[in-house]
């Protein structure tokens, strides 16, 4: 006959409760991580990344300009028109699509025989767009970016047309 002793009920209960506690902790950790990954953190990271990239693109386009043509000084509109040194006009405007509103850029060449560039989508989902001309060469940008999951990232900044001195009276 074996010398091995059986497990006492109390020992079994203690062991079972320890196992249950550890299991519960593990499961809750995994559940929280999955929820965070699927519904919160990753979309925010993605949205921030998109916001940074799109804002950098907008800054690069606007900085090239000389003057904010629309909105006029002191006014707020949901679109802008900026003139650059070659007399091209850069238009930025929201466009309604079936998926929602998106923000587009369009460059119009006003010189005789000039060719327009095609429409370029800068942000695919936006809400609440407002451009305010704080000076003839300074545009305040306020808009809210959105992604498919409904996460939002608002942007509030000001961008100056760096070539405005080209219009200065010599």
């Amino acid at each position, binding site marked *: 006959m074996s010398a091995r002793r059986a497990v006492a009920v109390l020992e079994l209960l203690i062991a079972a409760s320890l196992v249950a506690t550890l299991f519960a902790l593990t499961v809750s950790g995994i559940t929280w991580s999955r929820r965070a990954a699927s519904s919160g*953190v990753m979309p925010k*990271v993605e949205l921030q990344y998109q*916001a940074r990239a799109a804002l950098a693109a907008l800054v690069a386009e606007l900085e090239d300009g000389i003057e904010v043509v629309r909105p006029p000084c002191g006014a707020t509109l949901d679109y802008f028109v900026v003139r650059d040194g070659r007399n091209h006009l850069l238009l930025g405007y929201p466009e309604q699509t079936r998926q929602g509103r998106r923000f587009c850029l369009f460059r119009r060449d006003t010189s005789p025989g000039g060719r327009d560039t095609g429409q370029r989508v800068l942000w695919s989902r936006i809400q609440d767009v407002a451009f305010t001309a704080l000076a003839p060469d300074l545009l305040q940008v306020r808009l809210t970016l959105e992604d498919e999951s409904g996460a939002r990232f608002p942007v509030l900044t000001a961008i100056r047309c760096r070539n405005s001195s080209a219009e200065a009276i010599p």
Partner: protein
Amino acid sequence: MRRGASLLEVLIGLSIVSVAVISMAGAMRQGARDVGSSAQHMAAAALEQRFVEALMQSSQGDDSDALLDGWTSERLLPLADAGHPCFAVLEDSAPPWGRLEPGRDRALGVELTETYRHYGGFAGRVAHAPVDRGGAVDVDVRLEDGDRHAFDLPLVLGFSTEEPPEPPPVPEALDSEIAAILYPDGSEPLDRAVRRAGGDLAITRDLGGVLVPLRAAALADAALAARAVEASGDLLELARVVERRAALAWSAGLSVAPCVGRLERSTGRLVRGVRVDVRPVVLGELRRGAALGERFVAHAAEALGAYRAAREAVGVGGLTLRVLHLDRRILDAAEIVALCAPERGHGFLQAWIAFLAETYRGRGPGMEAHLARERAWSADADRLTARHPRVAARLAELRAACAAMSALEARCTRELP
């Protein structure tokens, strides 16, 4: 015989797995916090950009002391609900349309739901190092979010002092040029001609140092006068040409000042042995030189009139960049005229500032702040002088040089053959 895992082994294994999973969950939780912090950092960077642009907009052409006095604060001011001057008004949301009016138009308030939630918790403060009047100042923009995370942006702001540039150093009049004016018939070098006539070479060179630049300036001015006639149909071009005539008078008067000063102090006879017919030439140049101060003021006033006419032709419609530059130029010219001839220019300067204040009300916070300071500075002639100390000092120098040239003309009348 194969033995099953003991309860102790199962417990140890499960503990290891739990520790690993919990650590991973903790890391992810920290990652989530970092994402939130990164979002705040990006928001702070965007806000700082707006701060800096507004600060630069407001700084155009102003003295750094006055500018920063209006912006700096001891404590952090909330950006929301118009708590900070930089965010007093955000958007044009109420009539009269096309003007941003604090209290009437939209500030960073709750109605901007998402923007308010994200940016409304920020507070900002602008601080600066002791102001260096050399045209640049260290500025620190600090933002804190609702969780008291601080974001600092140190920057150096340059300020235009609106002082005219120093006139370029005039090359010393060449002896041959001096000889061509004073001894036009001789082929001798100047030093020999002076020695033969028994004159003083140093005094002769100083007189040449006055006559040669004056003659060059007179020739350049004649060319500009011809261009002004050609440009009479184009008001802006006319204004630019007349302004250059004013600048020419200014720099010519200042450039001859050192030689005039030395001649004023010298006791020797001016020149000897010059031909009789040279005398009217010399006296004519000195007479023109003595009038440089008046010519400067007259041309500046004429340029101001042409700029005003060009501005009136544009009308009071859209405030384009060109109009803004034109308005600033008129303001600068009006200040100079008011400084040089208060009786002629001070009234116009004040009227022009009042006109601009109404035109730019709510249409450019930077220009508004600039005009508010201009209004204070132009309240009387003394303050205007204090605002432009270098211009005032140079103006006094120009006037002294003109008076000295007038005295020199009288001396030449006595001493030249």
